């Protein structure tokens, strides 16, 4: 079997090499009982995401690439991946698109791309203090002033860790 047919949640069909199963646990399992010319329905994956996933798979020649560095060492994703294409790929996407892609890769059990997306989001958190994160993510204060003070006294390095190095 050389090609399989994937169907996005909108009903669009895409043909792809069966080697895609190297990257996706979900497809790998499906192929155990696969009948020739059978469509594989991906009810949780949109056509746009599926296209991106296939672009990623084709670039990596259907082989699992090296995972991103963990923990990441820089807020720039390019410093944390071995293939610069991976960095360019995720940098094209905005945060909502990345989150969608994480959901899709989670459905497909596609660890390598999911790790890349998670590392990209982690880069957005890297080196940011509490207030910046609250502002960026529109988080309103949920802790009382007392809890806030206690957190600051319990974890002073949360504020000062950077100056110690």
């Amino acid at each position, binding site marked *: 079997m050389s090609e399989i047919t994937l169907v996005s949640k909108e009903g669009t069909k895409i043909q792809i090499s069966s080697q895609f199963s190297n990257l996706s646990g979900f497809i790998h399992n499906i192929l155990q009982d696969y009948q020739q010319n059978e469509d594989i329905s991906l009810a949780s994956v949109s056509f746009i995401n599926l296209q991106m996933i296939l672009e990623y798979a084709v670039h990596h020649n259907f082989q699992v690439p090296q995972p991103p560095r963990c*923990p990441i060492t820089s807020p720039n994703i390019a410093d944390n991946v071995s293939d610069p294409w991976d960095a360019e790929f995720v940098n094209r996407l905005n945060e909502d698109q990345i989150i969608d892609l994480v959901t899709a890769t989670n459905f497909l059990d596609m660890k390598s791309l999911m790790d890349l997306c*998670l*590392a990209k989001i982690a880069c957005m*958190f890297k*080196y940011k203090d509490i207030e910046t*994160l609250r502002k960026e993510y529109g*988080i309103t204060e*949920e802790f009382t002033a007392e809890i806030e003070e206690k957190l600051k006294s319990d974890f002073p*390095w*949360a504020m000062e860790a950077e100056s110690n190095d």
Partner: protein
Amino acid sequence: MLSANMLSEIFEYLELNEIITISSVCRKYRLASNKPSLYKREYIRLFMADSEISQHPSSEWRNLCIRALQINFNQLSFQSPYLNRSDIKFFFNELTSTLQSPDLVFPELRRDYLSFPTLIQDLLGNPNPLERNQYPQVTKKFNTKFNQIKYFFELNPSDFLTNFLQPLSKMIKSQIVNYCKAVDLAIYESISPIEEYMKYWEIYGFTIKKMYTLLYPFMEYFNAELCKNMFENMNFMKFMIQIWIENVFMTRREQIFKEIERVNWKIVEKGVNTIGVFRFKAFIESFLDLSLNEVTLHFKNHSRLQVKGPYRDIHEKVVEFFNVESTLKKIDLDVLDNLYLVWPCVTYRKIVENVINICRNVVEKENFEASANDGDFLIELKAKNLGFSLEDVHKVDRCLNVPIIGFHDDLRSFHNEKCK
């Protein structure tokens, strides 16, 4: 919108400081950052040698991480007229990196095996200059500084103790205690606990040696301080070992005893191979290290071994196990010799009776004056088990001329005869 599960996955890519910071952003982030595996991985990455991550990690890892960060923070804030911040950082980095990734030499080569069978005896027996040569770069930096500090000490000893030595001791202790708690947890969650125990003990022993070397110019003050404020006859090494006993050995005690029983069954079934003997011997040696007292320094060829604590407990277990005639007949004494270092007290009533009678004769014949000897537990234990009076035991203890080596020989020939 990021779900809590997705956040947890994202936090896997952040460092400990960042995870802690982020946990203060809001309740959702706090919840997502509470994943024990995050903390276990980070603690091990930052403070320990690689551990087997095999079982579901306990939530205790988070507390250990927080405590470790607190300690680091306090260390960096430590103000002393004698050591500046970079010196303190240097010293603690040395401590952390040794615990995290020691230059592990093959343990048996590290020791002067012919003279000292255990790590601590080796440290006692090989005085510091030899050790200092092993870390020339580190000791050079520190010795210069320490020589200056010694001068300060001479000028104002009480200030030196209050403002320098005591807080430094407390910081070392807090870091070591936290580390030992993490070791205990790593062992508990491991699928091969004894291997983990041994690995961490080797690292710990190595760290004790290295810290001893680094702090050597201060050791006499350290020891005097410990002795005065903590326990009598306490010194840096014993202090470090005590921390290990309290935080690792005692909590793993039952697991260790089970493993010893497993090995004992293997001895009976003749299932101990060379590698097994080698590994288990090192395991037993580690308990000799923990049972250190001054007398054990002379352990080599010392028939009247005097040890306390863990080794003695283990010995009791071994005695208990082999004190069954049917078991004794099956065992290979050479294997036992190898594994337990001292000949375990695998005896029959008759043999002990004979020995004690010999002792009685010696005592009476020579009108032997009692000495303040703590006792030879090899005989003491067995005699107690067999219902001899304490007085009898003490007679044996006090008799310096009791042919203990002959006693072992008697046991051997008796055993051989029995097994024919």
